[in-house]
């Protein structure tokens, strides 16, 4: 075995170890890693670590999995304890995906501790209707929809494909009746006509789709609606480049990477892990805060619509919901809140989180059925009844 074979074997083996831990570095990175090991041989564990990291780590979000794979692969080859100490000494960077929300000291009230009149106002009048429709959505997979529901779903898909809110982009494209004279194109044309400027060429601004962000409460009674809206988000994501989706119960999980690629199974297990620590009561304010800090402030929602699904039952301080929505209002173009309870005639926004949210919403919709999802689509595009 020649020397370069060693490096290649190491790099390829480490690539496999990473893949086993869910980090897809890819052959190109593995080849680079081998080249690095040849060009700059690692003389210590720390040197090996940083070379591996520079070449093989796709994103800081993958760091934890990277560390596990690094220990597994290189630990088996040499001094595992030294490597473990090394990895531990590396500062953990701020996590972005699935970041944990700060824990509160106060003990959250169990659902049954909520004021009885609040609960009654929201649920009692037509409780049996809600229970049955929830039941139907929860227990039935999408392929089991009956004919009328499936037709409506297809209509909705068709609608989303053609519709969409646009804004003018900074980019330009050639256009016969464009508003800006295209000097370069005109001159190029002129060289074909012996330098005579015969044909005027022009360009106009392109149009771009605005982003849409779904933030879905997947806890308890919201789960079936979240599932339907998530399906809707996936349909939207096919037609639009800038669609993101997040799930939250007590913490925020970014589902965007799974939207376009993953099958139902992976998406559902991601949601399940987001709900895992759900203990009755949602932390809307904290989830919105995590979204604002990690995404909206960096520009994820800028110029776009944010769709929030929740019943507004806040386990912690409802004032935080108001504060964070106020912030989000400054960062996004439009906020649409979907609360399935709103479909009841006797509904009043008595849930304290909901009441705190209302002043900051552009649209407040029920979105509980395929038909009312249409209204959600309208609201995303700014057509608000």
């Amino acid at each position, binding site marked *: 075995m020649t020397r370069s074979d060693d490096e290649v074997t190491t790099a390829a083996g480490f690539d496999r170890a990473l893949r086993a831990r869910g980090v897809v570095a*890819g052959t*190109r*990175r593995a080849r*680079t890693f081998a*080249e*690095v090991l*040849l*060009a*700059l041989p690692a003389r210590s564990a*720390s*040197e090996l670590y*940083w*070379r591996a*990291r*520079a*070449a093989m*780590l*796709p*994103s*800081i979000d993958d*760091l934890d999995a990277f560390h596990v794979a690094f220990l597994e692969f290189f630990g088996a080859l040499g001094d595992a304890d030294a490597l473990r100490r090394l990895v531990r000494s*590396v*500062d953990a*960077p*701020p996590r*972005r995906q699935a970041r944990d929300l*700060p824990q509160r000291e106060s003990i959250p009230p169990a659902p049954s501790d909520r004021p009885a009149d609040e609960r009654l106002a929201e649920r009692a009048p037509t409780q049996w209707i809600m229970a049955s429709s929830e039941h139907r959505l929860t227990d039935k997979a999408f392929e089991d929809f009956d004919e009328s529901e499936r037709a409506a779903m297809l209509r909705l898909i068709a609608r989303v494909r053609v519709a969409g809110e646009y804004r003018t*982009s*900074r*980019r*330009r494209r050639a256009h016969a009746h464009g508003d800006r004279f295209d*000097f*370069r194109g005109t*001159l*190029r044309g*002129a*060289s074909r006509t*012996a*330098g005579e400027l015969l044909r005027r060429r022009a360009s106009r601004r392109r149009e771009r789709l605005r982003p849409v962000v779904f933030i879905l409460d997947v806890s308890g009674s919201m789960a079936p609606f979240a599932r339907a809206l998530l399906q809707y988000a996936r349909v939207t994501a096919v037609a639009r*480049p800038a669609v993101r989706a997040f799930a939250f119960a007590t913490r925020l999980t970014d589902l965007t990477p799974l939207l376009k690629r993953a099958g139902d199974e992976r998406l559902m297990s991601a949601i399940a892990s987001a709900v895992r620590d759900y203990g009755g009561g949602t932390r809307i304010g904290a989830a919105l805060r995590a979204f604002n*800090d990690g995404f909206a*402030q*960096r*520009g*994820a929602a800028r110029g776009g619509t944010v769709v929030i699904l929740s019943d507004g039952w806040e386990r912690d301080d409802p004032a935080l919901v108001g504060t964070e929505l106020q912030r989000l209002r400054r960062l996004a173009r439009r906020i649409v809140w979907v609360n399935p309870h709103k479909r009841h005639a006797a509904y009043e926004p008595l849930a304290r989180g909901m009441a705190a949210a209302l002043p900051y919403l552009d649209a407040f919709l029920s979105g509980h059925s395929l038909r009312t999802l249409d209204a959600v689509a309208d609201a995303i595009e700014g057509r608000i009844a």
Partner: protein
Amino acid sequence: MPNSVDVDDLRRRLLEAGYVADAGLATALACAVALERAVLLEGDAGVGKTDAARALASVFGAQLLRLQCYEGLDLAAAAYDWNYGKQLLAIRAAEGSHEHTPDLYHDEFLIRRPLLAALGATRPRGIVLLIDEIDRADDEFEAFLLEFLADFAISIPERGTVAASHPPIVVLTSNRTRDLHDALKRRCFYHWIGHPSVEREIEILRLHLPQLAPALAADVARASAALREHELRKAPGISESLDWAQTLQLLGAQRLGADVFERSLGSVLKYPEDIETALASATSIIAAADGGG
């Protein structure tokens, strides 16, 4: 390998150039230089991504070309453009003297923007190309960069392909306002620049502000670290710490005490809510600043 670069040596030379790099960053930069491949630096705003490229240029005595990205950045602004006015004049002049139509796509009509200029190095490591805040550019520009980074060549339809005889050292930075395409990331070395440790921050402060009193430098570094522990909209980066230290210097402070804390806070925190948070725990932050004595 002819291009080999020693990591520790590079780290030392970066320090001489006024940049404190940790082992991870120095390794990523050394890999990029040795293998002639781009390096992508990510991190919060103000942690010294851009400065890393500046320091790298100064280490190799290279020319630094900076391309600031924004949405709608196109080839005319990033790679090259034609000097239309000059072309028109050439046409008219040729008409007047009844010559043939001149070559309108000659060198003299070409305007070299940073990407094209970066291909013109006359010696190895002669140019550092900084593609700043690539996350602000759009997908179309990222797609173009793929080709550029793979071949270090730009094809100009009117001229043919211009290739670099000595590839530039390419540093990309991103604030993570959006995720970059994996195709682009795969072509780069990657390093996440985190917030520095207190010791490293003191070192940086003293390196950049030689007249700063050592005690004040330590105070600012510890207070910045304490601020980062709070839940802030925007945790202070190194550049904010530097601003803070300078402000305190300007206010004539010897130490970071309660008297100057509130007055100088606007130089380090840029959101009213953050300033409120900091003022609410002013006592503990000032105590933390005083920490090591």
